[in-house]
């Protein structure tokens, strides 16, 4: 609720913090490139080209961004409440699976699409509800429960696509394809860019509004910053924790089903290369601000797609994606103490 026109000191600080984390990641990656006799400048240029070089590459990056953005917007809400949902990956798979079953069951048409999206989102919500209940009713740490539920969820989906919902017409364990009439429409001819990206981008202002303009967002913030003050102020702390956690599950599920309806058209074991985990880095890098999260998810998507170009131009293994993501995670976490250190030393004046 800060004044809109002037960028507040806090916002400025957040931006500097994010940029600092990115800069440190790039520096550290450069060092690793140098050790391996790779020119880092060249490498980053190839990476950039690989992500944004032409309309096709750009649309692939946006496609990549779509599920990451949807997941991390949800995580931003739960992180604001200081609820650490580490289980978005599992919620994403469950959402994708349930939504796909509905889409195939209804069989074609926009109604099936809509139903699939709704059910997919609810599936993610459902998968988050378990840990949420355990947190609120029994006080069990959500980090552990949400994380462990990932394995349960992912293996459950593996089993479902291996046995009960296995497609009859393929050799691999995967579900049947959704009817093409219910897929998310392609919005740019001769690319795979689909309506999902519009949905994801539209969610940015929605979540922003939710966090900054509604009493829900206000309460989430108060509970996150000071549960004791929240209790004193008459805010139902348990309820806010529950709602913010299942909200992040809702968006994780939506991300999963969007990926199916837009790109994969069926559930495979390889549906997500860890979007649920990437979302954590993105939400942290974007400092739980929907706009920041949007930029951060574009950045991570660019790293992912740029790296594959890097892989075949400079013969660098694809593992570089995980490396950079890991470094980013470390530096985002380290950036706050680092900023404070710099401020104390008077190097940084904000």
């Amino acid at each position: 609720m800060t004044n809109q026109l002037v960028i507040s000191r806090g916002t400025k600080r957040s931006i500097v913090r994010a940029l600092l984390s990115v800069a440190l990641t790039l520096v550290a990656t450069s060092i690793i490139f140098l050790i391996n006799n790779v020119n880092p400048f060249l490498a980053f240029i190839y990476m950039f080209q690989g992500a944004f070089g032409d309309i096709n590459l750009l649309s692939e990056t946006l496609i990549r961004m779509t599920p990451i953005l949807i997941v991390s917007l949800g995580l931003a809400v739960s992180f604001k409440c200081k609820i650490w949902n580490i289980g978005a990956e599992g919620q994403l798979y469950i959402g994708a699976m349930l939504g796909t079953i509905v889409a195939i069951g209804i069989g074609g048409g926009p109604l099936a699409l809509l139903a699939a999206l709704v059910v997919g989102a609810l599936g993610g919500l459902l998968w988050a509800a378990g840990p949420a209940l355990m947190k609120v009713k029994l006080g069990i740490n959500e980090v552990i429960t949400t994380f462990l539920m990932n394995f349960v969820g992912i293996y459950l989906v593996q089993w479902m696509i291996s046995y009960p919902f296995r497609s009859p017409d393929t050799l691999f364990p995967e579900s049947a394809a959704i009817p093409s009439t219910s897929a998310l429409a392609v919005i740019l001819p001769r690319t795979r860019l689909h309506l999902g990206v519009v949905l994801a981008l539209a969610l940015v202002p929605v979540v922003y509004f939710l966090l900054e303009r509604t009493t829900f967002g206000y309460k989430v913030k108060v509970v996150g910053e000071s549960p004791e003050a929240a209790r004193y102020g008459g805010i139902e702390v348990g309820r806010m924790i529950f709602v913010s956690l299942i909200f992040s599950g809702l968006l994780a599920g939506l991300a999963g089903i969007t990926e199916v309806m837009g790109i994969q058209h069926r559930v495979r074991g390889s549906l997500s290369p860890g979007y649920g985990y990437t979302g954590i880095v993105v939400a942290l890098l974007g400092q739980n601000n929907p706009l920041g999260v949007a930029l951060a998810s574009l950045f991570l998507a660019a790293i992912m797609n740029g790296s594959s170009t890097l892989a075949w131009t400079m013969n660098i293994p694809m593992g570089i994606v995980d490396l950079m993501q890991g470094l980013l995670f470390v530096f985002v976490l380290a950036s706050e103490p680092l900023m404070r250190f710099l401020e104390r030393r008077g190097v940084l004046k904000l």
Partner: protein
Amino acid sequence: MAITPLSSPFFNDKEQDNGKDAEYAVFLKGITKIFPNGTVANHDVTLGILKGEVHAILGENGAGKTTLMRIISGILKPDSGEILIDGKPVRIRDPMEASRLGIGMVHQHFTLIPEFTVRENIALVLATSGWLNLKKVDEKITSVSKSMGLEIDPDSKIESLPIGKRQQVEILRLLCQDVKILILDEPTSVLTPIEVDSFFRMIRDLKSSGKTIVLITHKMKEALQISDRITVLRAGRVIKTIPTSEANEALLASLVVEGMIPATVVRRGTPGAPVLRVESLRVSDDRGRPAVDGLSLVVRSGEIVGIAGVAGNGQKELVEAITGLRRVESGTVRLALHDITNKPTRFIIERGISYIPEDRLHRGVILTMGVHENLALKCIGKPPMSRKSVIDRGLVLRNAENLISRFSIKVPDPCTSVENLSGGNIQKLIVARELSNGGEVLIAEQPTAGLDIKASEAVHQELVALRSKGIGILLVSSDLDEIIKLSDRICVIFGGRIVGEFVPENLDIERLSRLMLGAE
């Protein structure tokens, strides 16, 4: 920076020497501190603390007292100026460095870890080498507390100790670090007069064992009683340093605040029908032991009921039970026609109970959120602050601006986060929010703790005004003067029960004190 001190006729020539003189334990020369948001907290402060003296610092809320002390103890860095310890210029980089120089500070808000025992809390600051030698810590605690004549069980948890004892632990912790200069930031603001007495005895003992003590307070009486010299700060500058023998209350008051302090005219209220009715209430404390033990109490509309008592006799639990923050074991709490026993806090707030909590930092505000957001805490869920869950941001801001000017809260702008406010201004914020709530009952716990004389007066006036509007007020305070001044009825609490009741007209202070100590 060559800025001549304000109001030079007041300026004390003695301090103008260069401080190289070794008779000064601490000498501050031209200290200026400007916070990143532009607030000038200290402006060219020159101040000497003599070895072995008790030096009181007075000043309005936000005058820069805490900031100055934080600079001495290495928590903050001055933007310009010099610090001399024992006549030698030093740079105090961090609190560790300060502690090596023999400087230690007890903060305005306690920093002991409540879940830890006394021993653990002290071990935490002594463990500088990475090794924790608990036996050595124990020896240190025993020898120091023996020499000070303190009776503290090293195994008791901090949360189980009354405020007065916690204070002693804070000081014990400093002494275990072999501190020579003790800085105490408003140590007496939540102590009862009895506790203040024993606290002052300890200060005198410390002084006679050669320690130097700097003490911040808002109470003129205390400064006059305990100190050797007094320095008054206003708006970040030193107004005057005088020997206590040359000071009196009126002089100090005129130095601390500009202009006259309007004295509250307190006429007794005209109580109406009962609004808050507590009957045979039983409540347990955090460790499950009975804290409120069959207590009954009535507050009528247009009446101030004062609860007098030594902290730790069930006041906290009583208030928490009324406000829905603690479970009631048995008995009832009724608000006008509603039974509010064990109802959710939100329900109780909506039925019209406002509450100024004692634990202002953790309960009363959200430190990392803006002043405007904090001021809206209790009313954001209702129209006109929000409609259909959508917040009217303009109104939130206007509401904040109103309250800030009405209660003269000192803030750079209404959106700064509360952590940037001085202690007294945080208190003003809470008071502003709770007094403007409306409702039928106000529960005020230490409403003027940490407020300067002017702000205390203003709060008293607001309380009296609320009373004449027919609101029932339950005043819980360790400040007996405050209770006597405002209350229509005084209830003495001891061991979780009301053990005596007085009307101020025929008050027997002797008997009141005896009752507070459970001597009857």
